[in-house]
């Protein structure tokens, strides 16, 4: 069985099938790109894996264990962490405050240690702050840590969102359209960071609307349309797959 595997997963909202009997395998260490037109079920897929939705049918396995029907925080503890498309921050805080709140899993001492400000808590806090600084450094946010997070530019906010997801020490990172609303240059900057994260051994599932972004980064691409998988394979092959072209551009009318 693969590292992360979806077996025959369906999600219905009333009579609408957002995902319909989807099978998907993710291998350790790869960057899997998921493309598809609007409403094809990409975000639903992430919501299912991260535990935000429960599937109507089917199973999700991670490291040979079922992770269906667990709460999002339990799934995060297992090492599957997601980012959001919008609403990525804790509004009102600085960058470093945002990172520290989201570093929940880096704090190993129980709450009462921090209540009494024990030595153990101080060490723990130092180590969590160190980890947060390491991550901002990785994503080139170091100059901004004392700035108001919701005052950052859109691109930096998205990067901060990724940094916050990384504070949970993921094995699998689910990125929900990390480059929306960016120009090509900014998108390439983010893609570069995604590669860097992958080099550290993190498996990445990258949802992307724009296939050109995926070309440089994904090792494999799957294309969704109306909740079903219509193509799966090398990025170039998927891009030229007739069904994919049809899903994006429609059929030729002669």
């Amino acid at each position: 069985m693969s590292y992360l595997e979806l077996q025959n997963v369906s999600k219905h909202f009333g009579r609408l099938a957002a995902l319909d009997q989807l099978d998907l395998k993710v291998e350790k260490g790869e960057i899997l790109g998921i493309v598809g037109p609007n409403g094809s079920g990409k975000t639903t897929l992430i919501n299912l894996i991260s535990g935000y939705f429960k599937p109507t049918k089917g199973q999700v396995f991670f490291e040979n264990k079922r992770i269906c029907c667990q709460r999002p925080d339990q799934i995060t503890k297992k090492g599957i962490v997601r980012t959001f498309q919008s609403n990525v921050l804790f509004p009102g805080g600085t960058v470093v405050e945002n990172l520290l709140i989201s570093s929940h899993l880096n704090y190993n001492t129980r709450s009462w240690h921090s209540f009494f400000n024990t030595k153990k808590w101080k060490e723990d806090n130092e180590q969590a702050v160190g980890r947060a600084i390491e991550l901002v450094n990785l994503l080139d946010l170091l100059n901004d840590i004392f700035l108001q997070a919701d005052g950052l530019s859109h691109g930096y906010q998205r990067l901060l969102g990724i940094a916050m997801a990384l504070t949970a020490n993921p094995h699998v990172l689910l990125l929900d359209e990390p480059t929306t609303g960016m120009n090509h240059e900014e998108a390439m900057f983010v893609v570069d960071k995604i590669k860097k994260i992958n080099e550290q051994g993190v498996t990445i599932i990258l949802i992307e609307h724009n296939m050109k972004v995926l070309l440089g980064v994904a090792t494999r691409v799957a294309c969704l349309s109306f909740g079903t998988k219509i193509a799966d394979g090398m990025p170039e092959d998927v891009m030229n797959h007739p069904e994919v072209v049809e899903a994006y551009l429609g059929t030729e009318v002669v």
Partner: protein
Amino acid sequence: MMQFFKTIHLMDYKNIVPKLVIGLVVAAIVLLPVVTKDVVILSMLIFSGLWAVAAMGFTLVLRTGQFSLGQSAFMAIGGYTCAILTVQMDFPFWPSFLLSGIISGLVAFLLGVVVLRVGGIYFSIITLALGEIVRIIALNWESVTRGSRGLVTSSPLPISIFGWELANFDASPVPYFYFMLCLVAITGVVFWRIGDSRLGQIFAGVALNPELAEHQGIHLMKYRIIAFTIAGVFTGYAGALYTHFLTVITPMVFGLWQSIQAMIMSIVGGISSLVGGPIIGGVLLYGLGDRLSRLQTPGLSQMVFGATVVLVLICLPKGTGLVELWDKFWKKVVWREVEYEHDEMED
């Protein structure tokens, strides 16, 4: 949403003068009974201190993003627990008092497990209903609560050490006054540490963006229940002391208006501070209400309270309340510090 991060600690300033001012105010309050044993002044301070504790409870629950309208219900639960144990079961006062907060916290915990699943406006409505449920139970369970006649409590026995009488609760309100100060101090220290510790950070995360917090591994229910339970415990203690100082509890003592009063005190004092804001709000508004109620005009204090909230929210729209004025006074008026704002940042 600034107020969840911008925590103002009244003691935070490096300069000694503001600390000195606070120290003097605290010392003056502690030594007040030496100067005056006036029942009117002391009882006003006792009640306002107890309301400050209730307002602190409201602020703590608000810090996790929940709007509790059940503060008076927990005061009633604490008050009735203590009264039933001492009057109906002839328990001594001190263990009954200890139990009152624990029972109130237990009710908060059990209710939280069920209700905090929904959260948001539903939570407010259910806590509102809780107040009514407690009132109706108190009214109708005559064998235990004596219905609308209420329970008349007696004062705690005098405390004496080696024959020297330390506190006589029957003779004057002074022992109650120090009792209240102890309760406010303990609650204040506990809440200050909560706000300052990792718990405070987690609460901010849960309040500001619950979805994101949950996907970062924070168990939302757990932390909401923790805040609600702690608030329930201390509000219960305030209710028990309130009941014994008033010497009577009836179903009419703690109602919806009292819950709203705790909320108004918290908002007017400022929710950016877990301790200072509710205390300022509690003392000012209870004092104001007390003065107004002497004018014998029904509904006047409600009107004035409402107007105060509107005024405070217009003048200090970030929800930082009157405690912000203290902050501004030292920073801008006294030290003339320039505040650098990072709110707007160029791309």
